[in-house]
């Protein structure tokens, strides 16, 4: 299965791209995808406890299962206003 990952603000800068594609195994979760990214970019690990995630532009928990074609967004702590 292939999914799209969207990254914002500091996370985008650490990864060096606003959007990347990743192959995931059936049954993989948002959390597992995040761990894959952390292995690639260890600097992401300090966001372990402060990120939020969204699947197809809706907030989602880390245990959410992924489906082919999903768009997953990882969001650092927000600072709008």
């Amino acid at each position: 299965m292939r999914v799209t990952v969207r990254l914002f603000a500091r996370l985008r800068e650490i990864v060096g791209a606003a959007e990347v594609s990743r192959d995931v195994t059936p049954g993989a979760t948002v959390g597992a995808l995040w761990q894959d990214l952390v292995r690639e970019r260890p600097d992401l690990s300090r966001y372990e406890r402060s990120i939020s995630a969204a699947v197809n532009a809706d907030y989602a928990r880390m245990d959410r299962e992924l489906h082919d074609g999903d768009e997953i967004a990882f969001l650092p702590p927000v600072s709008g206003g």
Partner: protein
Amino acid sequence: MEALTRVVADHAGVHGAAVTFLGLVRQLNAGRQVRFLEYEAYEPLALKAFGRIVDELTRKWPSAHVGVHHRTGRLELGEASIAIVAASAHRAEAFAACRYVIERVKQIAPIWKREHFEGGDVWIEGATADPDDDQARSAAERAACA
């Protein structure tokens, strides 16, 4: 702001009060001389978050109607980053609804600001966005009713 005011003026005669809020780019932040701010948003989710905030406040203040607009990109000192209009039958609800919107936007809207100051730049990181966090929602309600 005119567009926002129209949002609430559609109920002309029903509302007795309209409260507006502008968030402005401030020159001094945490001891740093700010040059300008740069905002970024995950737009489809930000719009849903605004919708959720409106749903929440309509349950709490049924007579309130609100409009909210957040800008993205580079904003200079003194420019408005966010505009909110809240109208209601009575002023207490209008003030409360307006305050509630800004508090919740800061908690759950997927929007980020990067501060460019004299000598560097930094992404500002506030709250971990979790719309189901009842403690955060209650804190916004308390601020709105203070």
